[in-house]
């Protein structure tokens, strides 16, 4: 490095510029000091007053949550005004006396209130803290009358979720709950604050971000007692998007009434596109109770009670399919070429494998039965013999092709898969090889087989729609007046790859189940069209009941068989696929088929046949 004369010269040139820099720095800092002088000394006293009783509060204006409609535009969920009680911790004069007064005026847990008043809140002293949501009229009147000597107490009006029909479709609509610490930190709810109610279940949860809307707010100037003097600036909230379900209100009501007092599930869907028209699960719950704050006992009853009302049995209830499974067996037998439809098999009421005897449900036997009669009259022996020839792994292969043992892709998630056993599964799960006898009971939908009602409704529909397994959908559209941001479009999740003539044979048999004299599902007939169906009676305990309960002895209800019925209407024009399951209901033909019949009759109602067609396909809201 050298210091040339040239460099010396340029450093000299810098020195003038450095003088300019000094000037600029001094001027810049003088400007800052002038500004500070103005703020702190000239206008200081005004700011001091403002800070002494800091009068500018930030107030939330909560948005309207989107409304929920049924498929025809009938309002199901709305908002109504709620009067919420808040305290501003910094403005309280005496905490103990306030707590005493509050407990006298409104129904409150005194200890919880004390805890709230002394805890965390003091870190953000001017932030209003909710004490009680949705005051009753009486409480509101009492508090308002005493507001003048309750410093630090304020009432805010907020829109509150209101489920117009109580427990109507509650498993689909869902409910709201206070956002949890973990959810707040997860970053998935960027617009939420502590204390906000968010969707915790059902459509309310899945579509939370679309229907919640955007919060607004205002800067409010208040006086020492917390009274509002002026709104300084305001950002209006935006309402959330509305949402329409694919549910038909009338059909849903029929389904819920049919299940009242029972435990079970009903699914009714459009077999041509996967739209769910009704989905009922009993017992159910009223989502309104979650809004006003649910007490512990009630929460325990809902979540851990034996009846588990929060469970959506239509997608989460896993039951052995019983004889409904024979649809899968028939398909496997036909496709594998093991069934000659004309060939007759002799049923003497029992089937022997080794020294084990498997009974037909009809003790005296069916005599000689061909394929059609075997399915119509649900002859167990016919399917025992078929099952033995197929083997469990072939059965599993076809059951999976029919969409069993896996989720259907139901829109709201939380679905159970059910279970389709295979030899590999058994070895892995229990470490014991598959037993031939287990194949025999698998053939009539017992042993380890478990399915959900929604899987069965979809399968029934697929037999009649050419084999397409649609993803079940419950949301028809989402959006605001006039503009939809989402609209339902059918989505095929899979296809039953089978020869059309085989599907036709099964269809004929399912029609026979309902319409032939010896069919097991005659209780679901209607006047104006052909209904098809299949009964099922699923044993809760697979062993002979007589071993546990003496003959004639009363069997406790929880050991009664589950009753199944799957149905399709009409065979000429398939617009409705139904699955009914009644827990411990007994025989499918007598306990489940009549409910399906009721549903189908309600769907077709008094409408003449010409309009029936239009209604099934039309997209009217």
């Amino acid at each position, binding site marked *: *490095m*050298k*210091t040339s004369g*040239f*460099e010396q*010269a*340029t*450093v000299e*040139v*810098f*020195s003038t*510029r*450095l003088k300019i*820099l*000094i000037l600029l*720095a*001094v001027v*810049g*800092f003088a400007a*800052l*000091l002038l*500004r*500070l*002088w103005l*703020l*702190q*000394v000239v*206008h*200081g*006293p*005004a*700011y*001091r007053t*403002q*800070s*002494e009783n*800091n009068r*500018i509060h*930030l107030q939330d204006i909560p948005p309207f949550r989107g409304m929920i409609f049924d498929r025809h535009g009938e309002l199901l969920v709305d908002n109504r005004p709620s009067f919420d009680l808040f305290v501003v911790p*910094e403005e309280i004069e005496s905490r103990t006396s306030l707590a005493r007064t509050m407990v006298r005026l409104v129904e409150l847990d005194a200890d919880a209130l004390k805890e709230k008043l002394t805890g965390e809140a003091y*870190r*953000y*002293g*001017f932030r209003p803290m909710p004490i009680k949501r949705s005051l009753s009229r009486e409480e509101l009147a009492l508090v308002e009358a005493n507001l003048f000597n309750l410093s630090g107490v304020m009432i805010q009006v907020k829109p509150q979720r209101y489920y117009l029909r109580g427990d109507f479709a509650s498993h689909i609509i869902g409910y709201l709950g206070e956002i949890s610490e973990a959810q707040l930190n997860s970053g998935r709810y960027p617009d939420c604050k502590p204390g906000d109610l968010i969707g915790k279940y059902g459509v309310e949860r899945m579509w939370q971000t679309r229907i919640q809307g955007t919060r607004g*707010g*205002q*800067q409010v100037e208040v006086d020492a007692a917390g009274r509002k003097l002026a709104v*300084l*600036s*305001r*950002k209006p909230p935006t309402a959330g998007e509305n949402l329409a379900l694919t549910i038909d209100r009338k059909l849903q009501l029929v389904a819920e009434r049919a299940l009242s007092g029972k435990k079970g599930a009903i699914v009714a869907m459009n077999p041509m596109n996967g739209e769910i028209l009704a989905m009922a699960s009993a017992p159910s719950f009223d989502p309104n109770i979650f809004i006003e704050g649910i007490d512990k006992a009630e929460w325990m009853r809902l979540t851990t009670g034996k009846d588990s009302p929060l469970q959506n049995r239509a997608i989460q209830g896993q039951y052995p399919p019983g004889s409904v499974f024979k649809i899968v067996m028939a398909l496997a037998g036909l496709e594998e070429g093991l069934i000659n439809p004309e060939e007759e098999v002799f049923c003497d009421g029992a089937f022997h494998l080794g020294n084990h005897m498997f009974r037909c449900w009809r003790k005296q036997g069916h005599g000689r039965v061909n394929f059609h009669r075997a399915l119509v009259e649900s002859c167990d022996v016919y399917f025992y013999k078929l099952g033995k020839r197929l083997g469990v792994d072939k059965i599993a292969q076809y059951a999976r092709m029919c969409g069993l043992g896996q989720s259907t892709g139901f829109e709201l998630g939380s679905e159970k898969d059910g279970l389709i056993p295979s030899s590999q599964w058994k070895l892995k799960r229990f470490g014991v090889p598959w037993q031939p006898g287990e194949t025999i009971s698998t053939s009539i939908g017992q042993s380890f087989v478990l399915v959900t009602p929604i899987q069965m409704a979809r399968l029934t529909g697929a037999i009649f729609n050419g084999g397409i397994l649609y993803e079940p959908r419950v949301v028809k559209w989402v959006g605001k007046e006039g503009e939809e941001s989402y609209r339902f479009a059918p989505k095929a999740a899979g296809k039953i790859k089978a020869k059309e003539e085989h599907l036709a044979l099964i269809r004929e048999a399912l029609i026979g189940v309902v319409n032939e004299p010896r069919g097991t599902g005659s209780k679901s007939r209607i006047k104006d069209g052909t209904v098809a169906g299949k009964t099922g009676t699923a044993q809760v305990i697979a062993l002979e009941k007589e071993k546990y309960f003496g003959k004639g002895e009363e069997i406790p209800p929880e050991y009664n068989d589950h009753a199944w019925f799957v149905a399709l209407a009409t065979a000429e024009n398939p617009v409705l696929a139904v699955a009914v399951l009644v827990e411990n209901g007994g025989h499918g033909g007598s306990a489940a088929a009549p409910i399906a019949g009721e549903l189908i009759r309600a769907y077709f109602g008094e409408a003449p046949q010409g309009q029936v067609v239009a209604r099934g396909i039309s997209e009217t809201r």
Partner: protein
Amino acid sequence: MFDRRLIQNFDWTLLLILLLIAAASVVNLYSATYAIKGAGGSQVFMKQIYWFLIGFAVLLGMTTFDYHQLERFAYPIYFFSVALLVIVLFLGDTRSGSQRWLSFAGVSFQPSELMKVSMVVALAKFFNDHAQVSEYRLRDLWQPFLLMSVPALLIIKEPDLGTALLLLIVSFSIILFAKMRWRSLFILIFVTVSSAPFLWMSLKAYQQKRILTFLNPELDPLGAGYHINQSKIAIGSGLLWGKGFLKGTQTRLHFLPEQHTDFVFSVLAEEWGFVGTFILLMLFLSLILWGISIARNSKDRFGALIAVGVVAIVFWQTVINVSMTTGLLPVVGIPLAMVSYGGSAILSTMIGMGLLMNISMRRFMFQ
């Protein structure tokens, strides 16, 4: 290499000014985080002390070599910093919506802070290599413009508009100092202004909205607008003598946003009044003027340019931050050097101060 004169020439004045600012910072930060008890408030305060200890060590470390050696490393250091900015876009931690931090062995670091110093050194190197007696024309300056726009764009991408802006302003200050032809400057301004409408139209609606709120906080009454209001109340209510240490009500009650980082000045102003803000600004002005005198006494172009660049960083950061908290400028998120909480910022400032010290100590040296 090591010379007795180096110790004789140690710049005690510079060290004293820095120690005073650091002391003010620690005391003020104690108050700013005092109310966040239980939420890591005291931790913040202790961390700042550790960062200062490390920072002063770094400052001393920066004096152990002759700054002329930096001429060889100026561009490698620059490219290293740019590489870190690229890495942060892929591997950086995202905090409150922007990706600014690189975590390494449990310590997070903002590469954009390092970039500021690297930029100064790189530009000093350029103008030292391309010394000319006549003024610079635009065609002479394409390299500096490239040097400053690449990191600026990377930082905008994070996004950290404030730091990017600061980087551009500091770079531009150095270019102007190196002397640009007036005509070139006007052409540049003309081109920028006339292309602005096209740039504006090429932005997406939400980007336009973000810039509009940035320029006019009133458009966001619940965010920036509210914060500015509260900050002005805090500063104004300090009056002449302040409310006293730990007695600032605005601070205690969390009316201030980011009160230990971007708005730390408001805390000081509330508790120490105009007297406090006057003293702090005088400390910063002394630092700046002392820095300019170091530039003047340095025996070469390279040293003078680095000193001017470091001074420019401190000057602009102070002016922008104070203007922002007093409502003169939009809230751009630029912290106050040394006074705001932040490890990367302290280290970056201390590296800069180390360079000043280095140049100052070698003012009598001849090669």
